[in-house]
C-alpha cells in the first residue's frame, strides 16, 4: 500500500531524522560486539520511548489486565496436528454441553443460523487467549456475515466463566468436560496424548450441515482470519443453479 495520510506531508521531526540517519549508517558497520551493542542500545531506546505511553503509576497487587496478560509468559503450547476432521457436506453431530452459566446448549438450538464452532485446546493458554481475543474483536464482522461464534474446550464451566470475564468474551464457551472431550472426539479433533482438542474450526450451516472444516497444522497456529472471511463470504454468495 503506498498511499499515505498526513505524516509524509509534515516536516520530519528531529527524532525522525535521527532514526533515518541511524538506519542509513547500519550497512556500513562491521559485524562484531560493538555493532551488537549499538543494536541493543537502539532496542532499549525504542522500548523506553514506547513505555511513555503506559506511564501510569503501578497499582498495588495484580490488576485484571495482569491476569488477562498471564498467557504472555505462560509455557508455550506446540505440536503438529494429529487429526483429520469431518468433511464438508456431512451432517454436524449434535451435542449438549453446559455453558459458563450452567445452561445446556445444543447444536440444534442454532438450527436456522450459521455457527462457527471453535474447538480450542485450553482456556488461559497462549494461542487460545489470542485466538478468542481476535474473535471477540471481530464479533460484529461474524454477525454481519450471519455467523454465531461458539467456543468449545475441555475446561470446566467455572474456568470458562472466569476466563471469559477476564478477557471480555461474550460469545458462549461450552465445557466438553465430562465425559472429557467426548464432543471433540465426535468431531474427530481429539488429541489423545494431550488430553485436549486440536485447534479446529467447523462452519455449520442453518440446516446443521458442515460447510467448512479446518484443523490448524500446528497447535500454536491461529487460523488466518482473512482466509476465514473469504470462506464465509464464498458460502454466503448465491449458490449456482
Amino acid at each position, binding site marked *: 500500500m*503506498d498511499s499515505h495520510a498526513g505524516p509524509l506531508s509534515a516536516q520530519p521531526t528531529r527524532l525522525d531524522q535521527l532514526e533515518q540517519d541511524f*538506519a542509513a549508517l547500519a*550497512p556500513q558497520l562491521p559485524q562484531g560486539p560493538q555493532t551488537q551493542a549499538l543494536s541493543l542500545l*537502539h532496542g532499549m531506546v*525504542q522500548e523506553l520511548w514506547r513505555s511513555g505511553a503506559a506511564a501510569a503509576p503501578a497499582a498495588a497487587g495484580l490488576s485484571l489486565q495482569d491476569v488477562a496478560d498471564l498467557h504472555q509468559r505462560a509455557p508455550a503450547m506446540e505440536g503438529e496436528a494429529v487429526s483429520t476432521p469431518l468433511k464438508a457436506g456431512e451432517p454436524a453431530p449434535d451435542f449438549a454441553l453446559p455453558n459458563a452459566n450452567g445452561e445446556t446448549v445444543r447444536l440444534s438450538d442454532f438450527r436456522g443460523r450459521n455457527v462457527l464452532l471453535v474447538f480450542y485446546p485450553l482456556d488461559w493458554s497462549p494461542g487460545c487467549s489470542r485466538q478468542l481475543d481476535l474473535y471477540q474483536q471481530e464479533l460484529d464482522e461474524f454477525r454481519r456475515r450471519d455467523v454465531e461464534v461458539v467456543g468449545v474446550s475441555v475446561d470446566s464451566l467455572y474456568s470458562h466463566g472466569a476466563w471469559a470475564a477476564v478477557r471480555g468474551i461474550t460469545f458462549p464457551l461450552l465445557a466438553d468436560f465430562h465425559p472429557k472431550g467426548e464432543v471433540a472426539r465426535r468431531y474427530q479433533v481429539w488429541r489423545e496424548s494431550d488430553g485436549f482438542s486440536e485447534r479446529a474450526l467447523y462452519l455449520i450451516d442453518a440446516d446443521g450441515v458442515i460447510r467448512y472444516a479446518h484443523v490448524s497444522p500446528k497447535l500454536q497456529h491461529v487460523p488466518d482470519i*482473512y482466509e476465514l472471511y473469504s470462506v464465509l463470504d464464498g458460502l454466503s454468495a448465491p449458490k449456482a443453479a
Partner: protein
Amino acid sequence: MLSPGYGPFAGRGALAGEVVVYGSRWCGVTMMVRRHLDRAGVPYRFVDWDVSPQARAQLEWLAGGRLASPTVTVGGQILVQPSLRELDWALMRAGYR
C-alpha cells in the same frame, strides 16, 4: 545480518511515515493488529516474515535483536508486539489519528 540498501528501511520510506506490520499470517496478535488498522482506515503494508526471512533479519537489528510477531513500524517508532493502545498512541504521534 545487515544488507546493502537496508531493505525495508532504505531511504525515507518506512521511517518517514509508512506503517508496516511484520509478522506471521497465523499469529493471533498480528491479525488483531491488522484488523485494527483495517477498521481505522490506516494504510499499511504487511510483510509475512515466514516468507521474507531477510526482512526479519534486517528488522532484528533495529529492535535490539529481540523480535516478536507482530513488530510494527510507524514512522521511526518500532513497536514489538504492541497492545492496540500502544499502537494507537504511536499512530497518533505519527499524525494518523
